[in-house]
């Protein structure tokens, strides 16, 4: 059996699934229920200074639903904990004492002044927490007060606060990054420069969930007015994975431990994040949609996957996909794929044909027989291997891509596949290539 135990910055947990700092980790009762259900750790909902902040008493959440009404995205306008600091600290102390084998991380957000951090860090350390996570990501409410994303968007502030935390606390420091920024590598580099032990990402994305078309008021609203919220859930996973991969492959931050966050709903999502370099993953939306029990299915799936692939520990495949993430210029322009339609499983809906015809390369023939029978076939002479048909086919594995082998002729160009690698940097059409050759 695979060993899914996690050791992240020396913080041990029976599995890599931590609950992210969010409503599910706001109180002792929730966290206790989570640990009973099997979660490996929690990042306690962000602590702030007293007097505590106040939440709206109207909608705090809204969802983007898929066609079958599954939650694809969730948006929230919750703030950090709206309970007094002392109550949170007491509960954290009790919980860590009762669950010594689980990870307990304190998420923190106080004003961007040294005194505030100096004051809160010892109190947190006294709870027995295993580490701290700096919330530089919350995009709503707190950022208006100069905290959260307002800090996370300024690399210098990130570095400064991280340094304070490393100075005033012996606990491992995880810097939680905001995606509401142009290039996530800069705040990650700043965190590392400040001495951060790890980064976690992503926090939520600025979002407006919609507009009520009867009232023409943005949705959701409190008393007729709304505010942008933080977006999370399965819909943000591709954005989060890009940012994780960017940090994992950036020479300046490569090797910096990462706790992956963003749309992790199943073991597959978690395994992908691990393959992109993450040591733990943090989950919130899936728990808010399905309840805490879902961690059992995630743990089991991960374990079964690892067994099937012969991975004994998480480290065995952690980061294995990182070298496959490259700049576009590195892609092999001599590699050629063609779409292949499995006529046995094709249900003849014709969607591949019409989208290729209307929006791509007119590379799928439509033939109708005398008895009305329909047939859709790839015209390799036009197929550029764009994958659109594969992407939209409703039947799994019915359209796939076949890579042309060396010696085969590409029916579109008439050229023989050589099997040699060549990319844009060496391509004759690239003006920069010429320039590069001319320079000494």
């Amino acid at each position, binding site marked *: 059996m695979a060993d899914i135990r996690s050791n992240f910055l020396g913080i041990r947990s029976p599995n890599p699934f931590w609950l992210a700092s969010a409503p599910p980790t706001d109180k002792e009762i929730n966290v206790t229920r989570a640990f009973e259900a099997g979660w490996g750790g929690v990042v306690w909902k962000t602590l702030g200074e007293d007097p505590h902040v106040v939440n709206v008493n109207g909608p705090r959440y809204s969802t983007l639903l898929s066609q079958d009404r599954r939650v694809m995205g969730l948006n929230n306008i919750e703030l950090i904990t709206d309970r007094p600091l002392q109550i949170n600290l007491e509960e954290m102390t009790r919980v860590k004492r009762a669950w010594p084998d689980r990870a307990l991380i304190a998420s923190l957000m106080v004003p961007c002044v040294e005194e505030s951090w100096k004051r809160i860090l010892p109190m947190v350390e006294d709870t027995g927490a295993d580490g701290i996570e700096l919330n530089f990501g919350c995009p709503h409410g707190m950022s208006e007060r100069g905290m959260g994303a307002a800090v996370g968007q300024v690399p210098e502030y990130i570095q400064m606060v991280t340094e304070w935390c490393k100075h005033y606390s012996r606990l491992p420091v995880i810097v939680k990054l905001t995606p509401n920024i142009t290039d996530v590598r800069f705040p990650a580099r700043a965190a590392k420069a400040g001495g951060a032990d790890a980064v976690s990402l992503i926090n939520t994305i600025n979002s407006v969930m919609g507009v009520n078309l009867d009232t023409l008021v943005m949705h959701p609203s409190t008393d007729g007015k709304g505010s942008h919220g933080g977006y999370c859930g399965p819909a943000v996973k591709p954005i989060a994975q890009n940012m994780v991969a960017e940090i994992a492959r950036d020479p300046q931050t490569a090797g910096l431990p990462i706790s992956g966050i963003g749309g992790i709903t199943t073991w597959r999502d978690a395994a992908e994040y691990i393959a992109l370099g993450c040591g733990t993953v943090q989950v919130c939306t899936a728990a808010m949609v399905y309840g805490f029990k879902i961690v059992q299915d995630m743990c089991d799936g991960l374990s079964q996957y690892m067994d099937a692939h012969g991975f004994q520990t998480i480290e065995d495949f952690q980061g294995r996909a990182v070298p496959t993430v490259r700049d576009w210029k590195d892609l092999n322009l001599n590699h050629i794929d063609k779409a292949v339609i499995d006529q046995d499983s094709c249900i*003849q809906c014709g969607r591949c044909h019409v989208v290729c015809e209307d929006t791509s390369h007119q590379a799928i023939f439509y033939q109708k027989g005398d008895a009305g029978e329909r047939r859709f076939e790839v015209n390799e002479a036009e197929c550029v291997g764009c994958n659109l048909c594969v992407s939209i086919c409703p039947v799994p594995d019915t359209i796939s891509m076949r890579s042309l082998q060396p010696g085969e002729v590409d029916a579109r160009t008439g050229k023989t596949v050589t099997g040699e690698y060549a990319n844009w940097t060496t391509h004759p059409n690239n003006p920069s290539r010429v320039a590069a050759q001319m320079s000494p």
Partner: protein
Amino acid sequence: MNGPKGCGVRAGRLGADQYAENFSDAHPPLTWAQASIEAERCYYCFDAPCATACPTSIDVPSFIARIAQDNIRGAAKTILESNPLGGMCARVCPTEVLCEQACVRNTNEDKPVEIGALQRYATDRFMAAGGAPLFTRAEPTGKKVAVVGAGPAGLACAHLLALQGHDVSLLDAKPKLGGLNEYGLASYKTTDDFAQQEIDWLLSVGGIAPRNNQRLGRDFTLDSLLANHDAVFLGLGLGGVNDLGIAEPSAQGLRNAVDFIADIRQASDKSTVPVGRRVVVIGGGMTAVDAAVQARLLGAEEVSIVYRRGQDAMSASAVEQQWAQTHGVTIRLWAAPQELLVEDGAVSGIRLASTQLVDGKLQTTGETTVLAADMVLKAIGQSYIAEPAGARIALKGGRIATDEDGQTSLERVWAGGDCRWGGRDLTVEAVEHGKRAAGAMHRLLMREVGVSA
């Protein structure tokens, strides 16, 4: 003796509440949640096979996409512009052999998108919201058309002609418009007077003058119509009922199934409709099923459908057959009526001859059985009565011969619906007949006024 056990043909076999329950909607309409989930199952196929399979070529993927997008009025428009009786067709079409059979979802799942139920959802909601006009009538052309018979073919034809600006006289022999939709369908298929709701909407476009209780050959003639109109459409339906081919002594309890069905449809209180305790329905089509199931729902204790061939030959679809069987109707195959048994002027039973196919020909085996019955309903088909329209209309196979557009042998006269030769006697085909004829008539009428159409 009264009550369910009482022999003979009598009304009020059930408690008052039971009738309401029995004749409520056979297939309750989809809720919004059900409709939206089902609509999302549609793949929005290219050159969609379901639309090709629909005799009226409804753009099925579009109307379903519009339901999914909560554009119900738009969905109704897509349906009704191809099939102005799309609401009724959603209820009575054998979708399992039309659009739903063609659905690509059958390939993997044996479960097509429920196109019929979705079509009903869209049209019901549109009608329930008041059925505000979707289409605007063209400028008046000054041309006058007479449509004889206000069944599905005539209604569709009248509607489309009116939309194109022609003035339409809609004549029907019955007190209510609707033809088969009003008189010929089981009550549980069209509850809440839907047939008339749909007609009200259809007439609301304007330009159609309905005239009820006007029978061709009695109150007017084809020649008189032609004298006063630029064109005539005959949607006459089938007025005759086929005989059993055996002696049919006048006896209480022997009825035409179509009359029985019409009585039930027209009865506001179903407890007033008499039914036998043991009912035998002769025939294998939808009329047989509608009569048999409704006999059960009226409280008949034993109901049999007797059909002289095998199950595959029945014109009632598999779904209809199953519907009958799950409502306690016994389907007896390979049996032909041989003798009607009568006691004291009332039906007491029927002797059936066993049949078999020998070299493709149906023969009796020599064996017979007797089924006790106090009611025998004839549902072995209906026939076109040619006399009222006159001998100048050429026939084929006993029905009116036409070209593909419904043009008859007589100039300026079109025909469609069951009275026209060819097809499967489906409501949706009748609508298509009316539609095609309206198109052809419009082209002729516009040519006359020198406008290309």
